[in-house]
């Protein structure tokens, strides 16, 4: 785009962000403060992820952007357009074709590869913020690996509800050292982070923090021996492609309790349907 550098940010800023990224990769799960810039998109819309993507993107990269697992949600469309416009890179909706995937709230169902980077948009990088509001204090707690507060919270959940009540943004321990927010992905996606072959980068623009999980790093969701971590999904199969091992969106079809469950990962669903899989709703549709 005329008047702007490749991928919007100037090279000095990208360099500063890449330095923060290198540090983040070297200390898995540790939040690295960085000089987050004001982007032409609002804070909360993925300014951290956008700055990270802008800093790692090269001319030959192929970019995929998803929000809630879908390529066609408004914000995903808007961010994809931003990079198509400012970097002129090729974009795709196919997970397997992408070299860089920017995401909000999901990890794709397809297993990611070593030659891929996944960039998470992070609203609140501090996993302890609900328990301790001062960031000066949480910084100290991370320094000392003082995570008793979080374990007490999980214990209180079990005492109160009989189970851990966190269903998304479920805290993880990275490389057995740092407590980390996986960003608000459903707990269903947490196991995908463990020993993932792809590089995982996290950007929080408003909070001015970057963190990372290098490929093949251990990521453990917090739990107790007698209350092991459990994932949670709607106990149905996708109405369109029939998949019964994926995360589902629940779509309200009428005001009498009618529901349709469909894949949250739209690309995964489309690929399955192309391969001939069909769910009950799709079959009804053909019958009609």
């Amino acid at each position: 785009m005329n008047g702007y550098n490749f991928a919007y940010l100037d090279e000095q800023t990208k360099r500063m962000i890449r330095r923060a990224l290198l540090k983040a990769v070297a200390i898995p799960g540790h939040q690295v403060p960085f000089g987050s810039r004001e982007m032409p998109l609002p804070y909360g819309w993925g300014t951290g992820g956008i700055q990270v993507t802008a800093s790692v993107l090269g001319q030959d990269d192929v970019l995929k952007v998803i929000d809630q697992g879908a390529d066609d949600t408004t914000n995903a469309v808007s961010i994809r357009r931003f990079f198509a416009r400012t970097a002129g890179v090729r974009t795709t909706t196919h997970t397997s074709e992408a070299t860089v995937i920017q995401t909000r709230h999901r990890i794709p169902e397809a297993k990611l590869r070593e030659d891929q980077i996944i960039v998470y948009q992070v609203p609140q990088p501090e996993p302890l913020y609900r328990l301790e509001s001062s960031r000066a204090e949480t910084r100290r707690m991370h320094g000392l690996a003082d995570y008793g507060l979080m374990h007490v919270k999980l214990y209180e959940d079990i005492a109160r509800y009989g189970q851990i009540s966190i269903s998304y943004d479920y805290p993880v321990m990275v490389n057995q050292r740092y407590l980390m927010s996986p960003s608000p992905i459903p707990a269903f996606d947490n196991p995908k982070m463990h020993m993932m072959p792809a590089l995982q980068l996290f950007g929080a623009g408003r909070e001015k923090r970057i963190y990372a999980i290098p490929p093949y790093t251990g990521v453990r969701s917090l739990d107790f021996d007698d209350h092991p971590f459990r994932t949670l999904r709607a106990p149905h199969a996708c109405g369109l492609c029939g998949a019964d091992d994926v995360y589902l969106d629940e779509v309200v079809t009428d005001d009498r309790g009618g529901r349709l469950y469909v894949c949250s990962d739209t690309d995964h669903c489309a690929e399955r349907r192309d391969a001939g899989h069909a769910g009950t709703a799709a079959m009804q549709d053909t019958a009609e």
Partner: protein
Amino acid sequence: MYVTVKGGEQAIDAAHTWLAEARRGDPAVPELSLAQVEQQLGRAVDRAMGEGSLYDRELAALAVKQAQGDLIEAAFLLRAYRTTLPRFAYSLPVDTAAMLARRRISAVFKDLPGGQLLGPTYDYTHRLLDFTLAADGAPRPAPRAEPDDVVMPRVPDILGHEGLLEKDGGDEGEPGDLTREPLRFPAPRDVRLQALARGDEGFLLALGYSTQRGYGGSHPFAGEIRMGEVSVEIEPPELGFAIDIGDIVLTECQMVNQFKGSKKTPAQFTRGYGLVFGHSERKAMAMALVDRSMRAEELGEDVTAPAQNVEFVVYHSDNIEATGFVEHLKLPHYVDFQSELENVRRMRREVARQAEHAEAAE
């Protein structure tokens, strides 16, 4: 069958087109020129410049027009533009004692060198709607006086002579810049003042007000408020002397606050400081109150109130950050909500199962 809701590029394009049409309003009404906005909505332009951290009246007028008068949106437009600008020099500190003042008042002295200068203020207007404005009434010409060479020393300098008021903070090297470096705590006063100068007027107003109502009060007197033009100078290294690159309008507020002292150190008033782009006394005064209250720890006072909590104030004063995060709640969150739905359903099943179990046992 059900069709997934497509965000779609077409929808976004259509929304933007509609927005542009709504912004223009009825095409039978003449369009606003930037000069009209800049001249006739000056306080809006000032606020956009202050919170947008960019002194450019014409660009600010454009931002106000583009944002349909939404001043936080206007400040956001200016900020996003500002980050793309190269920095070719840093100015020398401006000298507000040399300000060409349009207004200068002190609440702590009846009269003082340079005098009290009321200037273009709303302070003593009766808030009656002026229907002549609705009918294009031209204002009467204001009386004019010849500029004189009266020196207008700043009130802190007057009080400082006797040692009654604490001095300016010393020169602690290069001031920080929170637009380039992330905040760290404890945040030094220069960075705090930068955050306040960019901060939301409404937020600072409420916080400043809270200190007056007992939430960390510091007994302020408005030592002086002045508004007018100051010249901005830079000193290019290849020249070795300062050159004037232009004038900007600033509002400065010096609050004189409760004294400190002990048997050993003589009592002395403390200070709070406010400085903002353009004409905005409300913001400058609120800033000075909050600046002073954030110095509680440094001055050995108890930190009990929100306005004294540096982390709280500095993290939450930025309205571009605040509006982004509050408004992001309207982005889709259905994946997380789905996980919560399943979670609550599971918990309810568990309670129902246990109740059934108990019944069966009876």
